[in-house]
């Protein structure tokens, strides 16, 4: 560039100068972007990485001030101890059962409803859809008392299936919204062709529409799973018996339930175990997560 402009300064137009300025500015901008982004990323990642690292330190070091020497004593003793004495695998399994159950149930019910709202016209459809969406505005945290009494009388408290039903319900508005949008985006002619061929609505869904709605289902399952896996106050209210604890309750039990000193090494290892599925699922399925955010169903 500079060589060219030097040989023919007259030909250097205003536009070229501007392009050059812009390019140089773009380069400094990119460096600033990289530096700023990296620093910010460290702020978010270092505490999490530090927690993982600390979970591999012997418990005696976890309860001491951090020092550089700690890293030479890495061990899995917190994990093995947690498995032996705290039954963490049972709690992880409880969490997994509830989260998988919530994910599947939400997917099935939301897919059915999304299909119904998008492809079938029936009396009251608008009202029912509105009622399902209004649920998004109702904070379940404020319904703990009536829900507890109701679920208790139905035998759904101290019951992992009951917890999954509760989680499913509060994931339905989002799921139904996403699935309805998914079905609306499929050309009407596709299911029409199948029904002309004599396929029933269910058969049309299973054999013709299925591949087209899988992304929507993935989004729905992902949100339901993560909600269920990380939920705390509902589990605290509806689960009281020790052997049904989900992971957050098991961690709370380590914090308050233990007599005397809290075993911070175990607590850290337990928290890392709780982190793992979230991190893996999010990194692996980020595309679907972002589709969910974009779908416009997010409210809060």
């Amino acid at each position, binding site marked *: 560039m500079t060589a060219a402009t030097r040989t023919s300064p007259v030909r250097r137009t205003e536009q070229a100068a501007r392009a050059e300025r812009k390019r140089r500015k773009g380069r400094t901008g*990119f460096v600033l*972007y*990289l530096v*700023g*982004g990296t620093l*910010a990323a460290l702020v978010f*990642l270092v*505490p999490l990485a*530090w927690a993982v690292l*600390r979970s591999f330190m012997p418990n005696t070091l976890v*309860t*001491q001030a951090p020092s550089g020497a700690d890293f030479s004593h890495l061990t899995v003793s917190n994990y093995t101890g947690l498995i032996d004495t705290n039954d963490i695998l049972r709690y992880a399994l409880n969490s997994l059962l509830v989260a998988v159950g919530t994910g599947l149930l939400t997917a099935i019910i939301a897919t*059915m409803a999304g299909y*119904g*709202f*998008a492809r*079938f*016209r*029936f009396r009251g459809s608008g009202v*029912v*859809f*509105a*009622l399902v*969406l209004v*649920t998004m*505005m109702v*904070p379940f*945290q*404020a*319904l703990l*008392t*009536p*829900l507890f009494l*109701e679920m208790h009388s139905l035998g759904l408290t101290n019951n992992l299936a009951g917890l999954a039903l*509760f989680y499913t*319900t509060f994931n*339905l508005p989002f799921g*139904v919204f996403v699935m309805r949008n998914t079905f609306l985006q499929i050309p009407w002619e596709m299911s*029409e062709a199948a029904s*002309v061929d004599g396929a029933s609505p269910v058969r049309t869904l299973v054999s013709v529409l299925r591949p087209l709605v899988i992304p929507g289902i993935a989004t729905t399952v992902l949100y339901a799973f*993560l909600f269920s896996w*990380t939920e*705390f*106050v509902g589990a605290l*209210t509806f689960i009281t018996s020790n052997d049904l604890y989900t992971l957050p309750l098991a*961690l*709370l039990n380590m*914090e*308050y339930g233990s007599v005397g000193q809290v075993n*911070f090494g175990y*607590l850290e290892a337990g*928290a890392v175990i709780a982190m793992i599925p*979230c*991190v893996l699922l*999010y990194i692996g399925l980020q595309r679907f997560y*972002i589709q969910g*955010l974009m779908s*416009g169903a*997010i*409210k809060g």
Partner: protein
Amino acid sequence: MTSAGGIGRRVPALRGPGGHVPGGRGQGWRRLGGGGLSARRSRTGMILVSPAFAMVALFVLFPLGFAVYISLTNWPLIGPYHYVGGQNYSEIIHDQAFVHSVLFTLLYTAIVTVPIFVLGYLMALLVRSNRRGAVFFRTAFFLPYIIGLATESFILLLELQPDSGAVDFVLHKLGLAAATTAWTVNYGLALTAICVFVVWFASGLTMMLLMAGMNGIPAELYESADVDGATWWEKERRVTLPLLRRSIALSLIISVIGSFLAFNQFYILTEGGPGTSTEPVVMWIYQEAFVQYHLGYATAGAIVLVVVIAVISALQFYLLRDGDDKKAAR
């Protein structure tokens, strides 16, 4: 983003076979039993949506009505109860603990909302482009939100311990605090720590929502601004900000509702203490209902919370509807 604003609006794409199929080739049998088929499809539709409706009716609509009823009684966990009218409501507004929890929740919301928004906005500016590294940054910024407040609260509990926690260690090295600062047992320190923690946790969500909004702005607008010789700042002010109003409203409302419903971080880190000084509304409800067994009384507080959240949500619909029209006009 069409938002949850689907409520009440007619859905243009919702086509039924009646309006769509004009009859004709291969549809002869429909002409005979046209009404029958439409009725069958209508029935299929109802069957398909009924599980979702049943769940919502059973676990949301019924509890909502039941909550109003409970709040008008002196319901204990076990034993008889009777109707007390509005007594619970008139009592909670004079209950110092309840009023304190409301004020504390408002204070907490006031502290965290602006930092969450500003950080989220700055991060959205960083990650909205397709530049190299944007996906990595976005993933990193959002990771705390994905892992969840409960898990991270346990991690923070450990790092807030005097003498052994990393927070004291780092601040001590920087000369900002004593290595023995006990964060969770002091009102001011606990509130500070939790607010910083929540800003760290929640700004990623605001980033995502704003990024979605920014990516929805047509590129041509920036291109024509470029032709006009607009600077970066002018483009942000005159193109991005006005067209982002909707996303900004959405992210602020989600953030405020989230703060109003705060529970996990306080329950795990301070258990509302020292005393009940860091007790937010949801924890007051939880304690009254499931520790004190004053179910009627607690539910009156819960109804107040439901109403407040409903008002904020209605405000959201009002604000976002405006944006919706603009979007449609584009």
